[in-house]
């Protein structure tokens, strides 16, 4: 029971934060018509769907670890859907048009492999490759381009991925909430405001600091 309440609280927090973020990214897309926002919105939509499914499965009593066909589990299918969107999103961000079909093909073979073989190792390798390197690239690009949304996405991938690695319930849940908060902060423009202030403001601050030092001396 306590476990179910824990899931309920966490998933509701996730859904609330992501719905708020979705509203903002969708609004940004409507205002700017920048296709990146629609890609982010689709990704956020997939995360919300995952949370809703997790909630439903715990409430209705569907076991996400149950096999449906061969060695394929419901939980793995949901994770695959999420990774397809994540992979596609990364390719879109890096404008790798020629690789757009790769996520679908990789998923097809991973699912087919899982149907005939119980090993989860290929999926773990795939998930690791899709989590940490993209987190690094997105954070690096976000910092370079002073893009708060990209920083939020990068932190989200990082915390979300770490959560899957550290399979201690408390840390896993904490990292999931952290990932949602990090993403939400990116969507509301927190990082632009506090991590990357205007260059003019920056110069003012630096100037004030130097002048104070000079006066002191």
């Amino acid at each position, binding site marked *: 029971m306590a476990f179910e309440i824990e899931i309920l609280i966490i998933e509701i927090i996730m859904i609330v934060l992501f719905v708020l973020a979705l509203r903002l990214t969708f609004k940004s897309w409507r205002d700017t018509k920048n296709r990146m926002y629609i890609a982010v919105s689709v990704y956020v939509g997939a995360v919300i769907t995952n949370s809703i499914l997790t909630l439903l499965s715990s409430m209705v009593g569907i076991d996400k670890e149950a096999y449906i066909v061969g060695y394929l589990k419901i939980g793995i299918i949901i994770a695959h859907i999420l990774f397809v969107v994540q992979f596609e999103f990364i390719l879109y961000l890096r404008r790798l*048009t020629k690789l757009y079909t790769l996520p679908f093909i990789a998923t097809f073979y991973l699912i087919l492999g899982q149907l005939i073989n119980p090993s989860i190792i290929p999926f773990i390798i795939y998930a690791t490759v899709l989590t940490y390197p993209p987190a690094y690239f997105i954070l690096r690009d976000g910092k370079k381009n002073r893009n708060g949304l990209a920083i939020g996405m990068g932190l989200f991938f990082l915390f979300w991925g770490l959560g899957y690695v550290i399979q201690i319930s408390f840390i896993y849940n904490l990292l999931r909430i952290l990932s949602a908060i990090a993403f939400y902060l990116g969507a509301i423009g927190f990082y632009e405001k506090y991590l990357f202030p205007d260059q003019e403001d920056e110069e003012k601050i630096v100037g004030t600091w130097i002048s104070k030092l000079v006066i002191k001396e």
Partner: protein
Amino acid sequence: MVDNAFTTTLAHLGYSMNLFIIPITTLIVGIKLFREKKATGKFNIVRSTIFSIFFTFSILVILEFFVNVPVEKPALLVEWFGGLFESLNLYSFLIGIIASLGITLIAVANRWESFYYTSLFFYGGMVILFLFTGFDDLLMIYVYITGGASIIFLYLTAFRVKDNGALALAIFFTIAFGSVAIDIDLVTRISVLVYDVILIIYSTGFFKPFKVEVVS
């Protein structure tokens, strides 16, 4: 008995012709590719794909020659080459690459950028899955579908952009895949000779059914 001797002679003639004609065609296509690269500074993706098709085909015919001629050869080569579609072996692997490159050529010719490497990814996935699980049930149907699609789209592309190269390749693919699909000894042997002749005409630049060629 006489029929058997005739088809065997035809087969050896085909293997021998293949051994020279296809690598020479590959060399000619390769020279054109690198000459263009020297002039423009970058590889032409259409030519690169055609070169890759012929290069793979060259490997196939060289291996086929060594496996089929009655000379001493390593048992491992014969075992790995296989020569049939039933499972993934060197023969079906190379045919699969050619079929995949055929689809790549269609995507490249039509500038469907998102699909440039789709067939190669799909085929690569199939090979990786086979290496890890031994599952190769998709191979045969994949080669037939991609081979068939390559032929249809190559004809469509050839007539749409009036491209002599695409038409030559379409005819070449039709005969090559047709002979693999029909699998009647005499038809296969004659087909090999026919596509060799077509390749000679194509690579020497005499294949020009479209007078005005539109290059996109």
